[in-house]
């Protein structure tokens, strides 16, 4: 019996902090592993998500889809018009055929929890490390950090 030496668990499900939007036309169905989820079983008007293939807004009766997220802000428009923004590091968004949706994020923080000075200094550090990166994998890691920090700078500045 061989046990893998590293546990690459799909821990998105366990560590997720998940707002879960649903369409108003259906009973709200949401599966939220995190007890601190702010939108558990909430009806939403629209949720804007940044995905690997571009940012789009999920409306009620959106076609079923499964997308992986990019680090950027997710905007949730509630039925009463209140808009809430969360910066999500990465994760997935699933739109189901019954008009419910799950948004699973590895890290989802409201914008006031992020520190712009810290982001800028991390970004500069990443830029300087890029030239010293040895192989393609190390370069890719630094590039990912750079993109995540650049997204945070863009969001916090606006």
């Amino acid at each position, binding site marked *: *019996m*061989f*046990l893998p*030496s*590293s*546990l*690459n668990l*799909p*821990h*998105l499900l366990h*560590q997720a902090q998940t707002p879960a939007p649903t369409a108003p036309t259906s009973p709200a169905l949401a599966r939220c592993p995190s007890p601190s989820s702010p939108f558990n079983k909430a009806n939403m008007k629209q949720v804007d998500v940044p995905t*690997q293939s571009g940012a789009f807004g999920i409306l009620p009766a959106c076609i079923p889809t499964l997308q*992986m997220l990019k*680090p950027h802000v997710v905007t949730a428009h509630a039925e009463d018009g209140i808009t809430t923004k969360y*910066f999500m*590091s*990465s*994760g997935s968004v699933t739109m189901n055929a019954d008009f419910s949706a799950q948004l699973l994020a*590895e*890290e989802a*923080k409201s914008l*006031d*929890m*992020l*520190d712009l000075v*810290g*982001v800028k200094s*991390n970004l500069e550090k990443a830029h300087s490390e890029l030239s010293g990166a040895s192989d*393609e*994998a190390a*370069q*890719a*890691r630094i*590039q*990912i*950090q750079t993109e*995540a*920090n650049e997204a*945070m700078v863009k969001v916090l500045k606006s």
Partner: protein
Amino acid sequence: MVAYWRQAGLSYIQYSQICANAVRDTLNTEFKANAEKASGSSVKIVKVKKELCNLTNATFSR
């Protein structure tokens, strides 16, 4: 179109971990303690020694 990180041999799980660490690093100090709990840095990974594997195989094959 293959993503540059996938071409470099990284999986989405690894991409996600790097992004999440980047976000955790930039949290304001009062929220950092909570984030450390979620980071998985408190998880210990133990590699099973080969002799133990063989012993287990022998036990089951009897």
